[in-house]
């Protein structure tokens, strides 16, 4: 399923009519408004087409014969028609514009909600930049199509149909001659259609590669400068950019064939009409000079819409592609979804049981094998082991960020797959290795889990996490706005904020992943004391490399290549011959 984001050729597999049908589904809630707008449209087109008719009456029946009575009246009527037409146009545009915004809003909400439901594995395989593109360019293209291009299409189609009808009404034979060249355009469309679609796809892909490159470059600019990579990256940028340009030009060259061919076929149609007319004029009563003048006008009228409609094809194509991309995301099932009968986990004691759990991000490479581990409520468990031994994975499994591939995890004797994910996570507080700070005030970052927490509670939590002092030193104290990812703070300060956040959440289960690694010794000691107070009466899973943290644990679990190598307490493990923990203590106790 996820591979579909990278191999865009798959998009072509979905039948266009189904995509369109689904797309029009978004118009359904607004169908009354759209129908109203459409009827105004029809009125406007009719009024506009009546203009020459009124003018002809004015000229032929009044000015030409110098009839003054009634002249002003008809002129006033024409003015009234015009005002009505303009009012209609304004109203229609406002209606369509508003609908367009509402649809865009609906689409954004739906996509956002859906993406938030998706599992971690989705975010690990799809870069943020590419999700952003869905929101920004794809949704805008779709919206543009639904609201504006559709209106243009309706206008041009009705104009074309009126013209053709009038042509046949005047002289069917000549009308057939005039339309003789139409198949040429259809053939051209059939030939270019798949080519333009492929070219468009390639163009978009190149564009998206450039965007991803840019996004990464901008966020990694500091590293680029530190390593004096400017020239290398500049030439890489040059390559990516000229790739985009080349593909764009390729697409445009294909597309550029439409207008000239339309131009030529129009001329051919005219010449055919003129030729036939010249031969047959006078032979049939309908074939007058006036008819001919009208015909040339109608042919001109007709080719305009055809031009738009062929152009429309390209617009339709890009709309379909965008729709497909958005729908692909919407159709991506969350790997981890609540079962329909999932219950809310109301309150928790904090008893955790890993029952023969195995797990692998990629089934071929298991990260954890046959883990059996029981953590009674209120206990603190320390996970120890080398980088990559699976410590963080165990913590992620408790939160159900991933589902186990074998075995089960029970919280208070309930399989966590049978409860609502959110209710489970509400009881768990996590401090991640890489603390993430939102671009919001410090206070709001701390009260993240409980948005309605009072300022007093925020300050208490910050004081508890030893963050209060440095926060007060900031320009606006707790109201200081954090930069992107909290850029203005040191790693240690970011960690303090994220600890305060977990403290305020007041969870039954605490997960501390390397929570104090980047903090200086003094601060670490203070946090340690705070965390110990916090862990009192709560179940805690602590991942740490520092023995000072580990030795206080009720249970120490040593992981080695995804299996539990040793379990016990500090005193039982310290003297185990050839034990990893014993060796670790020796190494740090130097």
């Amino acid at each position, binding site marked *: 399923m996820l591979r579909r984001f990278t191999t865009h050729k798959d998009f072509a597999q979905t039948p266009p009519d189904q995509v369109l049908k689904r797309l029009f589904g978004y118009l359904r809630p607004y169908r009354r408004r759209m129908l109203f707008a459409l009827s105004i449209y029809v009125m406007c087109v009719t009024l506009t087409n009546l203009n020459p008719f009124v003018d002809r009456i004015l000229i032929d029946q009044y000015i030409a014969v110098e009839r003054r009575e009634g002249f002003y009246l008809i002129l006033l009527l024409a003015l009234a028609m015009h005002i009505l037409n303009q009012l209609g146009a304004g109203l229609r545009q406002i209606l369509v514009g508003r609908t367009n915004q509402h649809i865009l809003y609906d689409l954004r909400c739906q996509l956002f909600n859906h993406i938030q439901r998706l599992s971690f594995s989705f975010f690990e395989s799809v870069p943020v930049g590419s999700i952003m593109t869905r929101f920004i360019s794809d949704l805008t293209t779709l919206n543009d199509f639904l609201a504006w291009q559709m209106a243009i299409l309706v206008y041009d189609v009705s104009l074309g149909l009126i013209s053709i009808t009038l042509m046949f009404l005047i002289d069917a034979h000549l009308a057939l001659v005039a339309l003789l060249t139409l198949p040429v355009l259809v053939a051209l469309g059939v030939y270019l259609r798949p080519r333009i679609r492929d070219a468009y796809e390639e163009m978009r892909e190149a564009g998206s590669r450039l965007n991803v490159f840019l996004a990464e470059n901008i966020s990694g600019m500091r590293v680029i400068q530190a390593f004096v990579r400017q020239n290398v990256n500049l030439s890489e940028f040059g390559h990516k950019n000229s790739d985009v340009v080349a593909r764009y030009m390729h697409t445009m060259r294909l597309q550029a064939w439409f207008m000239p061919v339309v131009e030529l076929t129009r001329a051919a149609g005219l010449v055919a009409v003129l030729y036939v007319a010249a031969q047959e004029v006078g032979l049939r009563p309908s074939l007058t000079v006036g008819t001919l003048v009208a015909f040339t006008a109608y042919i001109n009228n007709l080719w305009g819409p055809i031009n738009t409609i062929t152009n429309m094809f390209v617009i339709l194509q890009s709309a379909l592609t965008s729709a497909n991309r958005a729908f692909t995301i919407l159709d991506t099932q969350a790997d981890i979804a609540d079962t329909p009968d999932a219950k809310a986990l109301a309150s928790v004691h904090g008893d955790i049981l890993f029952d023969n759990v195995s797990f692998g991000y990629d089934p071929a490479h298991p990260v954890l094998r046959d883990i059996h581990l029981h953590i009674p409520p209120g206990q603190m468990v320390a996970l120890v082991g080398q980088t990559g031994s699976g410590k963080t994975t165990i913590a992620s499994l408790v939160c159900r960020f991933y589902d186990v591939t074998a075995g089960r995890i029970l919280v208070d004797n309930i399989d966590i797959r049978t409860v609502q994910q959110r209710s489970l996570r509400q009881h768990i507080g996590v401090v991640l290795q890489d603390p993430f700070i939102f671009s919001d005030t410090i206070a709001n970052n701390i009260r993240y889990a409980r948005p309605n927490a009072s300022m007093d509670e925020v300050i208490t939590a910050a004081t508890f996490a030893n963050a209060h002092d440095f926060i007060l030193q900031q320009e606006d104290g707790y109201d200081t706005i954090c930069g992107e990812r909290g850029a203005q703070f040191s790693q240690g300060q970011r960690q303090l904020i994220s600890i305060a956040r977990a403290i305020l959440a007041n969870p039954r289960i605490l997960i501390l992943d390397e929570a104090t690694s980047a903090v200086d010794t003094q601060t670490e000691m203070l946090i340690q004391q705070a965390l110990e107070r916090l862990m009192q009466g709560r179940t805690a899973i602590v991942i740490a490399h520092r023995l*000072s943290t580990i030795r206080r644990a009720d249970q120490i679990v040593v992981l080695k290549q995804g299996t539990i190598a040793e379990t016990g307490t500090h005193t039982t493990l310290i003297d185990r011959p050839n034990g990893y923990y014993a060796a670790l203590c020796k190494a740090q106790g130097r």
Partner: protein
Amino acid sequence: MQRLLSFLRPHWQLVAALIGLNLLIAVLLVISPIVIKQVVDEVIAKQNLAGLPTYLGIIVAVAALRAAALLGYQVGRERLGQTVITDIRTALYRKLLALHWGYYDNERTGSLMSRMIGDVESTRIFLSGILIDSVNQVTTIVLLLAGFAQQDLTLALIAAVPTCIYGITLYLLFAERREIQLKIHQQSAVVNATLQDSLSGVKVVKAFAQEPQEFKKFDRDIKLLAELNIRSNRVWNLRNPWVSGMTRLMQLTLILVGGLRVMNGEISLGTLVAALAFANLMMVPVQQLGQQMTALGQTASAAMRIFQTLDEPIAIKSPAMPLAAGDELRGDIRFENVSFKYPKTNSYVLKHINLHVPAGTSLALVGATGAGKSTLANLIPRFYDPITGSLKIDNIDVREMDLSELRRHIGIVSQDPLLFSASIAENIAFGRVDATQATIERAAKLAQAHTFITALPKGYATVIGERGVGLSGGQKQRLAIARAILLDPRILILDDSMSAVDAETERLLQLAFAEVMRGRSTLLIAHRLSTVSQADQIMVLRNGQIVEQGSHNQLFAASGYYREILEMQRMSTESIT
């Protein structure tokens, strides 16, 4: 606007050719009805078939010429557009590469991205499409008015007055709308930032089960955006139809005035019909011009933002005449009375720092979080410049050295190791693109990364996901260390580079560092005193000032802050063993 046009100057030939083609297309459009008229009048009306093939031939020839011109025009226009945005985008990217760190402290990735993509795109649409098209439209309108005036001056005036009013109202409307457009743009930036935030922070969002709150934020932002858009749309559409309806009013006025004059015998019926035909022809370019005006507002603000970035002063750059340190840089570092504060803040982060790291020796910085350790380290590669005092390397003020030369001699491992979505090998060779596989592996081995890299299914060719997803913090840090080691720098800055590494790896790394640090000037920021104690010199920073300074033994004897933390750490390990 003038500046925007200057982007077209290097391509003036293409611009001229496009305008020429455009005029040709317009002129050919006018020829065709004239020929048809001839056919109707001369051939059909007079039943004289002799001239028919010639006329038909002319029609076909005109159409063919016009088709060719259209093809050339379209391709040329797109070519121009792409050339111009490549220029603008490259200029922007160059600028971003050159801008100092302080700039990035205050800019969001999202807004810079929208400048590089959205703003550049709307500039392209303007320069390659609208501008050249509108030259054509204005010419057409002027030509038509001239032709008009030849027919009848009064009627021409009737046509000219609404056209002028039209132009002025369009301008006013555009000015009114510009404000809202600006707000819309700002709000879009807010939406994108919110989106970026909740997408990149998705782990935290999920861990704290805050999806509804994130949605509420997003919902609030996009609702406001939709409202602004609807308002802008209303402003435009309540007025625009009247403006574009002006041409019809013009026709009706022509019929009124012209009609009365015909009836009074002042002009012929033919003249009135011709005048109406002119008015008809005028409708299309006037309407197109109006549509293009809408886009103008967007272009103006887009161009403004692009120039703002391009004009951003680069606070830190190479001097015009750099003093060469060259390959012989020894790495003697000296801070002389250096004070520093971040722009737009009041409090100094570093106060009167004096320190000296003789070439080839190491200095360890110790101190509480936020004491200014990283800031101090960031001054050496000139990521920031001191406010007062000076920083000298080999007795040359760093501000007088070539910036790239200086940085090329410095290897940095920062707290938050940022890796790029490229292969592991490419990431290690980040600073030396031409490094051989052997060099890369040697660096990886030194950084204790070789073993875990070769354990990966694809080894060194493994591509790292965005922001290093898939690797643990300790693994990322070791890659960052390998990346710095590969440079073989004279000066090494290790900013808390072992915090996320497990104890055993840390021990191995310490051994490796002892090897790597030999002969290089090293600035070491660490919390583990076991690491710090190996340094030749140790400095304790507190609130931006050096409070203690000396060797391990000296500081230990001084019984200050250093002694205090040492005791604390010792206590925790003693109680273990």
